[in-house]
């Protein structure tokens, strides 16, 4: 084998950017491992409990950008008890003690404290980018520390976090010398903010490209901000409410028409339909539109807007758009790649205006579609088969019928054939989430055809252990499997215990798995953490035959975690 000096290898490895490819590179031989680890700057840890921060730091001393994920996905839907874990503080403390020159931190579903944010803010002089998604545990005081101490802050992106809002003054903590902001997203803040401070901050940020405001920012402030930021490419409005004949609205229309760089639009956290025409001039340039929080808009308002959006590639919308509105999308948005249709009021008694008809229309009009999240009133096998034929490029396909076990609306049959068609046609499918009446058959299809499948979400589906076995045996690339309220039990769980070390995690709740089987699994596989969570029980009943409410298992190099609360028992 030819000898290459380390510098050459390093240079070559610079072109290898994806995490997986770099991981593969590091396995080739010892010298490649060594060069790779020293030159690695970006590290992704999909489960913060799979490894200790100290080990990560030791292996990657050149670490600049870290992504961490904490709680299991089903925590989004209240299936994981509060205080389960996912604390970022040990990571930030370890990083602060080390020599790592951290510049970027991205966290998802983690618990973040104000103290951690403060420590972060003064430990890393080159810190540039903080992205928090679905996190909790901090207040605007923590944000104030970031604002005050991170001199080179470029991105502060807060997406759907639960933040305790101490109202208003943290924006004042950005020093006058802070002019480096490129991206600011405060849409999830619930309280008032100091509008003057916001305007002044924007005025001294010439590189600002992405700005997403919260509800407390009214229309007239938006107009004044847009006057200062003609270079903005990504805008999230706050409150979009005013009288149609007001001077502020008139000025806004004029200002917006000059913002020719905006390609991504979202927000409208409060909106009056009659104000919406102000954004029409932007529509023909938009590639991304997110109206999924715009409760004030009716289907007709949405249709009028979307007719102008010919270049749209990503659309997130509420089901108030209806099947007719989706037909308009299908006719207009020929480049559409990602569509998400959210339910407008999850618990409303009335039926959703979105059915299989809308999805079929989209599949006909938008053949480039590869990512779908679709909440609907009903679905049919025929529709899914048509969709599979029209859109063979799906990478992510998530369908949710509002009634989780609803059969085919026409034939009253299970939806096995429909989803089967999807997995058979979409050879590149990586993520699948199903609902409706489903038997073991759909799992047979998944095991047979879904060769690239990495993440599968199952709820109220299947008839026997066979279902789960089809998946575990057939899907070679499965990494995350999450199952709730399905009749899978010990036989399926214990059939191939080695499989779980090839996966990131397995979640099973309200299934047929017993405590005894979980113990057996834990005993056989010491490098898995098998966590049991039972409802309302701090003292675990030691009866092995008892069914387990929630089991979450994941591979880990650190063993049982020390921060588990009382209701979590690691076997």
């Amino acid at each position, binding site marked *: 084998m030819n000898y290459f000096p380390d510098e050459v290898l390093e240079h070559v490895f610079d072109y290898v950017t994806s995490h997986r490819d770099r991981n593969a590179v590091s396995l080739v031989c010892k010298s490649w491992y060594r060069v790779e680890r020293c030159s690695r700057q970006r590290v992704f840890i999909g489960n913060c409990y799979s490894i200790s921060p100290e080990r990560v730091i030791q292996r990657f001393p050149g670490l600049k950008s870290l992504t961490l994920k904490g709680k299991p996905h089903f925590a989004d839907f209240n299936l994981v008890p509060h205080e389960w874990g996912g604390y970022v503080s040990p990571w930030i403390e370890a990083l602060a003690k080390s020599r790592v020159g951290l510049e970027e931190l991205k966290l998802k579903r983690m618990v973040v404290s104000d103290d951690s944010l403060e420590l972060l803010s003064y430990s890393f002089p080159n810190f540039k980018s903080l992205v928090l998604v679905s996190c909790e545990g901090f207040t605007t005081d923590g944000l104030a520390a970031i604002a005050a101490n991170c001199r080179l802050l470029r991105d502060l992106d807060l997406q759907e976090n639960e933040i305790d809002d101490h109202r208003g003054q943290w924006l004042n903590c950005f020093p006058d010398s802070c002019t480096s902001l490129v991206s600011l997203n405060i849409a999830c803040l619930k309280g008032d903010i100091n509008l003057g401070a916001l305007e002044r901050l924007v005025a001294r940020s010439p590189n600002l490209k992405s700005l997403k405001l919260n509800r407390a920012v009214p229309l007239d402030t938006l107009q004044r901000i847009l006057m200062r930021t003609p270079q903005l490419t990504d805008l999230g409005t706050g409150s979009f409410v005013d009288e149609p004949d007001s001077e502020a609205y008139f000025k806004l229309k004029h200002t917006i028409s000059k913002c020719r760089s905006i390609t991504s639009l979202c927000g409208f956290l409060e909106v009056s339909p009659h104000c919406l025409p102000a954004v029409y001039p932007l529509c023909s340039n938009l590639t991304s539109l997110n109206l999924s929080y715009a409760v004030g808009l009716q289907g007709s308002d949405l249709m009028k807007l979307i007719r102008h959006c010919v270049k749209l590639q990503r659309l997130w919308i509420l089901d108030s758009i209806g099947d007719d509105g989706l037909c308009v999308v299908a006719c207009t948005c020929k480049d559409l790649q990602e569509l998400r249709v959210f339910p407008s*009021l999850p618990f409303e008694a009335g039926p959703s205006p979105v059915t299989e008809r809308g999805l079929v229309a989209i599949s006909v009009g938008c053949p480039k579609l590869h990512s779908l999240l679709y909440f609907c009133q009903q679905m049919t096998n025929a529709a899914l088969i048509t969709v599979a034929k029209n859109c063979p490029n799906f990478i992510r396909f998530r369908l949710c019928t509002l009634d989780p076990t609803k059969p085919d609306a026409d034939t009253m049959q299970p939806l096995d054939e429909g989803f089967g068609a999807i997995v058979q046609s979409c050879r590149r499918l990586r993520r699948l989430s199903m609902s409706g009446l489903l038997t073991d058959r759909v799992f047979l299809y998944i095991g047979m055809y879904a060769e690239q499948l990495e993440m599968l979400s199952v709820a109220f589906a299947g008839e026997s252990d066979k279902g789960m076995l089809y998946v575990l045996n057939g899907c070679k690339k499965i990494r995350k499997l999450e199952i709730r*309220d399905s009749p899978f039990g010990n036989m399926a769980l214990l059939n191939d215990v080695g499989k779980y070390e090839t996966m990131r995690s397995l979640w099973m709740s309200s299934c047929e798995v017993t405590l005894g089987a979980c113990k057996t699994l834990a005993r056989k596989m010491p490098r898995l953490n098998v966590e049991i969570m039972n409802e309302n029980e701090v003292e675990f009943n030691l009866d092995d035959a008892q069914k387990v409410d929630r089991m979450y298992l994941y591979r880990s190099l650190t063993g049982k975690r020390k921060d588990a609360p009382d209701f979590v028992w690691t076997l």
Partner: protein
Amino acid sequence: MEVIGLKKEKMGFEETELRLGLPGAEAARKRGFCETETTEDNKNGTVDLMLNLSSSKEADHSTDKPKEKTLLPADPAKPPAKAQVVGWPPVRSFRKNMLAQKKSGEESDQKSSPNGSFVKVSMDGAPYLRKVDLKMYKSYQDFSDALGNMFSSFTIGNCGSQGLKDFMNESKLMDLLNSSDYVPTYEDKDGDWMLVGDVPWEMFVESCKRLRIMKGKEAIGLAPRAMEKVKNRS
């Protein structure tokens, strides 16, 4: 069942109802059970006892902690939705909470809501007026902070950032009025212009018709009248 029972009670309810507060003061009417099912305090609306649909683990769900309970629609007049399941449909709690809040917020904003108390707020020197719903705030401090945030773009200094002074104290009052800080004043039901802060918050919300934030020096003329009114009341 529950809903029918409620309706029966409601029929004779108004006649036998206890009313507290001054006659004609509608807002002081004691709230009955039905009215407590608003989304004001409990953003999630009424809580459902888990009657469940699918086979398996119902027993577990019925002992859920309050955080994990699922929700009935906020409007008790609609028939209760088919029994809901924890975590279904799978929508992030952040999104659920946002939509629930906004839905109730919009219902109260629409047309003239008897519960809203919108007044115009003008500030000397500012190019536009604002409208605020006084019922959104719990105290003078709350309100003062909000005004400060709203008008911060127009002031060089702070607007009432020190909070509202103790208006019972005449000398403090004179100091304030002699400064060039902005001072909030309001027009009450009698048409008189008063300094904000002399009456209890709830009474202020009832009697305030509009607000004007003026420079302290200009508000001096109000002080004697304000002090007189206060003396008459006590």
